[in-house]
């Protein structure tokens, strides 16, 4: 039995359109808090999108507004053309979510009973969808223990049941809020691999919210970074990494650079490179010197090499630093900027 059944008819229109979403929490005796501030987001069929942001960035609030679990202060949200506020039930018929992981399922029921119940809540008759759900249980390694109450399960297995119960609804739009939170490394890697496979095979639009950059980098094609309720980056994971990949270099210099020459070189480099760091592995003149710097443009690298030569040092190797999503995320969040 294969689990890769079409979950939604092919659509040309966006799966999700969010326009000007703002959510302000008004509090007694305290100033109001703007959790989401004028957020725009459009998701196309088949995209896997990572929602990143520090604590309080507005990720969960955004997801809950999209699902109609919170009322936006202003803005409009449409799922497959249905407005979440005025046409809520039609809209959420196309969406499912894991919101609190292992807490989203009934621990007294078995894995199979949970999956059947949540699929049924979406109007899916068990006899028609049983094969698909059983396939999911097998794929997530739950089939052998599908008739045991979840009370006997580990946290990771309960989390998997929550994901299967959500996927069993066969909606074209799926939200996974912190799907690997609290899991050990092995279970997290296992779950990530399964989600990556399913995202590619099922053709659903999957939104993953996580603090774990590896999870996003592993599963998603596109990343949306939120800071203080605003989108500060919305790009493909590859292009976001490319943006940072082109600017960071590491130069290893061979022997022959005295301490005075090094100071002089650093002074001259300051005009060319930003974030300049000299990482001295050994004393100047007796060991290896490593320079790490960021350039405004790739052409600046030639100027750096000329300056090194002029000071009498030899370039042993040039390494373009490979940034990961965590570095890109931290720089965007700490230094500001807008990548869209």
């Amino acid at each position, binding site marked *: 039995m294969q689990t890769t059944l079409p979950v939604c008819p092919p659509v040309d229109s966006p799966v999700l359109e969010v326009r000007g979403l703002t*959510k302000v*929490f008004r509090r007694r005796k305290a100033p109001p808090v703007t959790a989401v501030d004028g957020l725009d987001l459009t998701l196309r069929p088949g995209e896997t999108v990572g929602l990143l942001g520090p604590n309080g960035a507005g990720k969960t*609030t955004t997801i*809950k507004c999209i*699902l*109609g*679990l*919170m*009322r936006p202060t202003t803005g409009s949200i449409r799922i497959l053309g249905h407005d979440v506020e005025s046409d809520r*039930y*039609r809209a*959420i*018929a196309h*969406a*499912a*979510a894991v*919101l*609190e992981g292992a*807490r*989203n*399922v*009934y*621990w*007294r*029921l078995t894995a199979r*009973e949970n999956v*059947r*119940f*949540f*699929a*049924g*809540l*979406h*109007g*899916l*008759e*068990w006899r028609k969808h049983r094969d698909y759900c059983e396939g999911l249980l097998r794929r997530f390694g739950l089939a052998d223990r599908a008739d045991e*109450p979840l009370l006997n399960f580990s946290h990771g297995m309960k989390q998997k049941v929550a994901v299967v119960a959500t996927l069993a609804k066969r909606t074209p739009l799926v939200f996974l809020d912190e799907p690997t939170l609290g899991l050990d490394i092995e279970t997290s890697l296992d779950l990530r691999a399964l989600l990556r496979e399913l995202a590619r095979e099922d053709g659903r639009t999957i939104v993953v919210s996580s603090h774990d950059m590896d999870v996003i980098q592993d599963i998603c094609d596109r990343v949306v970074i939120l800071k203080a309720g605003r989108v500060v980056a919305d790009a493909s994971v590859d292009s976001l990494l490319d943006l940072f990949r082109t600017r960071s270099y590491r130069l290893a210099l061979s022997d022959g650079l005295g301490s005075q020459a090094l100071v002089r070189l650093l002074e001259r480099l300051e005009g060319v490179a930003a974030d300049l760091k000299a990482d001295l592995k050994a004393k100047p003149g007796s060991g290896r010197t490593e320079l790490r710097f960021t350039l405004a443009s790739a052409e600046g690298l030639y100027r750096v090499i000329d300056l090194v030569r002029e000071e009498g040092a030899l370039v042993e190797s040039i390494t373009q630093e490979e940034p990961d999503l965590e570095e890109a995320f931290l720089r965007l969040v700490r230094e500001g900027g807008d990548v869209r």
Partner: protein
Amino acid sequence: MRWVVFKEVFRKSVLEGLRYLFNLVTALITMYLFFLILFLGSRWLVPGLDLGSTTEALVVGFSVWMFTLFAYQDICWGISTEAEVGTLEQLHLSPAGFTWVSTCLALSRFLMNLIPLAFLTVLMMLTTGRWLHLDLVSLIPVLVLTLLPAYGFGYLMGGLALVFKRIQNSFQILQFIFIAFMATPSVAFPWARFLPLNLGVQMLRAVMGEGLALWDLPASDLVTLAVVGVAYLSLGLLAFAHCTRVARDRGLLGHY
């Protein structure tokens, strides 16, 4: 869609009922012991007293109170428990709507409660030696209409639990207010007929105690019972809808 949701909710309620069987059994034993205290206590206070129709009134009143408690608690405890275990938001994600899902939960639990509560009623009749008429055709419609306000209060308190969270103490206070509603004499206070449960208990006494059939009951009483029941249920649902709106505004649905 709605039928599938009802089937699955009913199935889940049965499964949970079986898994929590010990809880149900202890609840029934507690109820029975409470009844024994009332019944034997009154005989102990006045030895040799033949309570006569008062015993019938006690059995009927206690049975209605039991049904009321189970109906009311199924809603308000049900909602607060779902919030506590973290599944409430998932129920709100059903395209059938949360009101329908919670109605299915209430209906499922009512159907499941019928057998154990009927058993307890028979046990009370055995204990007292007073046999009541159990004409289900007349009994069930009057009982359902009588219980509608209990569901209304269940929705009201469930809604308040969504917003204010830990309010279980007030759940318990209301259980005793129900007794006051039932016990207010409508002969002395004609407006008492419009209180929740009041008229229903009187009509159930007529059905179970005097053996009157549904069609023997005054039509005006049946209409009043239905109107009062629907009114309290509607008010409860309105309050619940308002509380859900407030909880959505404040982002409280998933909190506990």
